[in-house]
């Protein structure tokens, strides 16, 4: 076991971890932050997407121990985030989820897209979302929600990641 200290959703957190532990398992099992879902555990599905140092990251493709001293944000830490507030509302309005398993990863990636490219069109969103798998919706509700959220946020000042 090794000691790991990182900034998790704005708070300093220290835990003993095994080197083989992924960031996803660390978040779910050690920190009990279960918004981050694990689908495939090899980088194909995108359900486990979080932000590391402000950058979208597959938490199943990162060892927790590699995050020593880094800043990790999960969906739980973005409750009051202005971009996420708008995204949540539009996901609700556009029926952008059915079973909800992919939704945390979709929201994290949608926020990343809107922070990098304000007011994106549907084609850009589809390209950028190509790493996130949803087996229920056929994606159209998700794309509609992100387009609408981008439009609403587009004119406003861009929030800092």
């Amino acid at each position, binding site marked *: 076991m090794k000691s790991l200290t990182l900034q998790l959703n704005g708070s300093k957190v220290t835990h003993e971890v095994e080197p083989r532990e992924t960031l996803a398992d660390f978040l779910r099992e050690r920190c009990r932050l279960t918004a981050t879902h694990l689908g495939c555990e090899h980088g194909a599905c995108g359900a486990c997407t979080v932000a590391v140092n402000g950058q979208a990251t*597959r938490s*199943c*493709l990162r060892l927790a121990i590699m995050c020593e001293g880094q800043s990790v944000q999960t969906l739980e830490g973005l409750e009051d985030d202005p971009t996420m507030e708008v995204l949540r509302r539009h996901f609700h309005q556009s029926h952008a989820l059915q079973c909800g398993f992919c939704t945390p990863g979709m929201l994290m990636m949608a926020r990343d897209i809107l922070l990098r490219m304000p007011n994106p069109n549907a084609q850009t969103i589809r390209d950028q979302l190509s790493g996130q798998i949803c087996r229920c919706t056929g994606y159209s509700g998700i794309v509609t929600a992100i387009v609408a959220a981008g439009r609403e946020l587009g004119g406003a000042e861009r929030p800092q990641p």
Partner: protein
Amino acid sequence: MKAAAFDYAIPKSVAEATALLGSNGAATAAIAGGQSLLPLLNLRVALPDLVVDLARLEELKEIAATQTNIRIGALTTHAAIEDGKLPEAFGGLMQKVASKISYRAVRNHGTIGGSVALADPAADWPGCLLALGAHVRIAGRKGTRSQPIGEFVLGQYSTSLAADEIIVGFDVPRPDAALRCGSFKVVRKSGAFANSIAFAISYGRGGPAAVVLAAAADRPCLLPAVAERIKAGEKSEDVLRDAIAQDVAKHVAKDDPYLMRLHTSTVLRAVREVQAK
């Protein structure tokens, strides 16, 4: 699945990293972004005793323009290249190639050095760097060396790296204003292994040209007959197709009409992009 147990070390210098990787009797693995190694660990395909984390070595982060070369540190991420962080655009080629690697979340951590060290036949960077004539800078316990990338990649997941050696970075010859680049990639789903990738570069009629096909054979291969046609300013589709067929047949089973057609199409599109500029 979950990875099997291994030990983990963060070396503070290249010398320490090479000493750890070369430790006798241990199966060691170097990790940078981990975007290829983590799936292999999680699926228990890779079973190292020790994982050596190179991600904090400053020497591997150097990005610089010298008089003759653009120096790209091994730890440069695909996302950094996609976002235009290199001091030279190479006719837009590297940005375009970077933007088509897997997904943004993978590009944020995956590195150019990791991609070349793994030497997956379907990877983007080995072929792209071969077209641009890059050298690989390597450090080991006995010191440093530099090797043309065409000699560095030996085959499928096989390179000239010894157990104790790591890639420090790449020296890519500085292009002049005449450089024109084209590339085309066929991949059924983003993030999956590519089915065919072609790169074409040209310095105008009579100037140097190179054409590379990747994801076809066990390593990226140069297509000299096609490059000669670009040099000669050949525009005829029939002539170009003949040259492509002649080159590609050396690397792909000629009796597979699908593969011949696929690779012919990617190479032709890359060549057409160069010629349109």
